[in-house]
């Protein structure tokens, strides 16, 4: 063979790859830390998150209570740690279902086109016509407050972005020669859609899912803040921020630490999103 072999990445090239993967590593490390906290909450948390202690109300950070206590004398650190369980769950389930629904519908709509596409996309238009939070709130109001309702509302509303992203990709990809080749080789439509086209189309929406996790986390916190999500006395960061609000001038630690946790988890997801975008070459 006289054809030149492709050049392998030189050392410096690999270094820059590592630097680019650095964001990914930071994100994965932070997320991992939160997962450890969530799983090990009973072992790690120094106090029971809902045990009240009338003698130790509204205490500032100290060695005994590193994050202080709230107006019921509950330990903020323990509540933040236990809250990790709920908030991770919100971020993951709140993204997973919209992702699966949106990806499937977008793939089918983009691949088949025509009337199928028209129906799906009009549905998308209808959902997009309503402001996001208004739609969420009305669905939760119908179903009754609680996390279950929140997840259902997320699934009903959140899939449209994924469907649009994937559909646009599929429209372009289905005319690529390798898709035509797959047809000419007698592959079934399902195989072409999900085995050949979807893996090539999905990179963008996986990256989007990570930034979406941040939005879901914040809207979960917002819904809980409005009293429609997680119900007291369960520890959830959004609820904790809401409960601490009356005391924000006198006992700032009640709102600060759960707020910081939300920011840190959101940061972890967006780092992972950026890292994946580099890895998949989405920007190129």
């Amino acid at each position, binding site marked *: *063979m*006289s*054809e*030149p*072999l*492709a050049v392998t990445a*030189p*050392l*410096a*090239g690999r*270094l*820059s790859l590592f630097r680019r993967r650095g964001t990914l590593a930071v994100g994965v490390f932070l997320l991992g830390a939160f997962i450890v906290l969530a799983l090990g909450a009973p072992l790690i948390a120094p106090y029971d998150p809902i045990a009240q202690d009338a003698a130790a109300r509204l205490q500032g950070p100290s060695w005994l209570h590193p994050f202080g206590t709230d107006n019921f004398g509950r330990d903020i650190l323990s509540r933040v740690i236990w809250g990790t369980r709920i908030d991770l769950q919100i971020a993951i389930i709140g993204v997973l279902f919209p992702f699966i629904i949106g990806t499937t519908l977008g793939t089918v709509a983009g691949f088949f086109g025509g009337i199928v596409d028209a129906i799906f996309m009009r549905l998308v238009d209808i959902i997009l016509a309503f402001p996001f939070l208004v739609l969420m709130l009305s669905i939760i109001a119908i179903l009754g407050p609680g996390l279950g309702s929140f997840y259902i509302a997320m699934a009903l509303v959140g899939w449209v972005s994924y469907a649009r992203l994937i559909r646009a990709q599929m429209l372009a990809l289905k005319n*690529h*020669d*390798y898709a*035509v*080749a*797959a*047809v*000419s*080789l*007698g*592959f*079934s439509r399902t*195989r072409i859609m999900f*085995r*050949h086209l979807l*893996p*090539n189309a999905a990179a963008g929406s996986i990256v989007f899912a990570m930034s979406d996790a941040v939005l879901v986390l914040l809207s979960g916190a917002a819904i809980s803040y409005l009293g429609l999500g997680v119900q007291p006395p369960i520890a959830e960061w959004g609820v904790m921020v809401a409960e601490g609000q009356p005391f924000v001038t006198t006992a700032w630690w009640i709102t600060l630490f759960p707020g910081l946790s939300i920011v840190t988890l959101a940061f972890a997801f967006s780092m992972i999103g950026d890292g994946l975008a580099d890895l998949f070459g989405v920007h190129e």
Partner: protein
Amino acid sequence: MSAPLLAITDLTVVHDGDAGTRALLDAVSLDLAQGEVLGLVGESGSGKSLLCRSLVRLLPSSRLRIAGGSVKLAGHELTDAPESVMLKVRGGEIGMIFQNPTSHLDPVMRIGDQVAEGIRFHQGLDARAARAAATDVLAQVGFSDPARQYDSYPHEFSGGMRQRAMIAAALSCDPKILIADEPTTALDVTIQAQILRLLMDIRAKRGLSVILITHDLGIVAQVCDRIAVMRHGRVVEVGEKRGLLAAPSHAYTRSLIASHPSLPEEEAAPKAEKLQMPGAVPVVDIEKLHVRFASGGLFKRSSVNAVDGVTLRVMPGETVGIVGESGSGKSTLARAVLGLTPVSSGAIRFDGNDITSGRAALATLRRETAMVFQDPFNALNPRMTIGQMLAEVLRVQGKIESARIPARCGELLDLVGLGREFLDRKPRSMSGGQCQRAGIARALAVDPKLIIADECVAALDVTIQAQIVELFRGLAERMSLTLIFIAHDLAIVRNLCQRVVVMHRGAIVEEGRSEDVFSRPRHAYTAALVAAVPHIDPDKPLLAPPKMATAYAHAAAN
């Protein structure tokens, strides 16, 4: 001899990458005399285009820089000239035209204004004088009604006319040197011949010096005075064209010349031909096939006849070439035969069964046919390794038991001349030629009776082209394949195929044995096509096609 107009001495351009500094142009030295046409040939990545961009200091990336050497234009050094001087040199002294006129013309600016813009900038004329000058230049490059066409937009013209407009823009400022970077690669052969002829006329009229970058040795043989061969950023050989083509001294030049597909001199006596079994069922039997595409908007519906009444039979074991210019319907025909494009009317029978009769017929077709595509990278799924890709085809086709699949994947790679290590490679880490071999392996995995190759060598360098054509020849002989080979390159088809079909505007204008069709074309269009192929022998001018052919080419251009 007087001093050369342009003297390049030891020009070195380096790339400052993460991996350190890499020389992309390595001490290139070249001279260009007044009125000379210098051909720059070499395969993709050899640095031809980069060299020309370096001359005017328009390097395509900020990581590239000129590290040494000098470029002297009429005695003035350009490598360290201030930017204000370079602005005058670009366009004013050195004009450039590019491969793809569509992307180098501004789509929302009138053609004439694009020509006049340079005139106003470089010669400081007012709008009215510039318009007159631009109209004059448009007339020189062959616009039939320049005063009216001045106000047209690029999309209103064909590819050939757009290339003329780009030449007009380059010439408008009266440069001393014209750099033409693959100016005809995107054009059909008949249009290519016209553009080359235009360049020669202009050279004769204006005494212009031209650097012509091309991968086609036929073009340099026809058009250039001297040839420089580049490889891996170096000039490996430079010399007067006749001498260089007749007695190349460098091994790489020899391989380039050997790879160049030429239409051979025709022997009059017909060779003994493979006997066809009387009464054999044709593999493909196309009858009065029409394929129409709807076009136009909601209110003005019309349809385009992409394939217009084609009747064609392909017998088992035959190698048939389909040639024609872009838009002649050859690819549409291929896709229709494979059931990838709906047929408007007519019949396609594969092995005697009508493929339009239903799903069952289509399923049979898919088990017996395969296609090889033009763009080798686009044709392979970027997320799958070659091994996964082949195994999947074998599994879905289900012709061999699953235990045998890994072994069969290896055999397929052997057939197309790829090493077994390619099973774990992804297309991204492979060259174009290697990808195309993998694409052929995928086609062979079907164990097909019929392979249709659609322009499958058009995107490859000539040396690789020759290898792939040779591969097809070997496979067709060994495996008694039926091959339909679509190409716009007549010489390749002539070399590979026993029979050739010439298509023009959706219809077959001529078909027959390759020798007969190319040596004694019966149809004027075929004659025009054949005459327009630049021959590697400089003494066989392309510039004098038969009268009838010229008339036809003009008709085709408009």
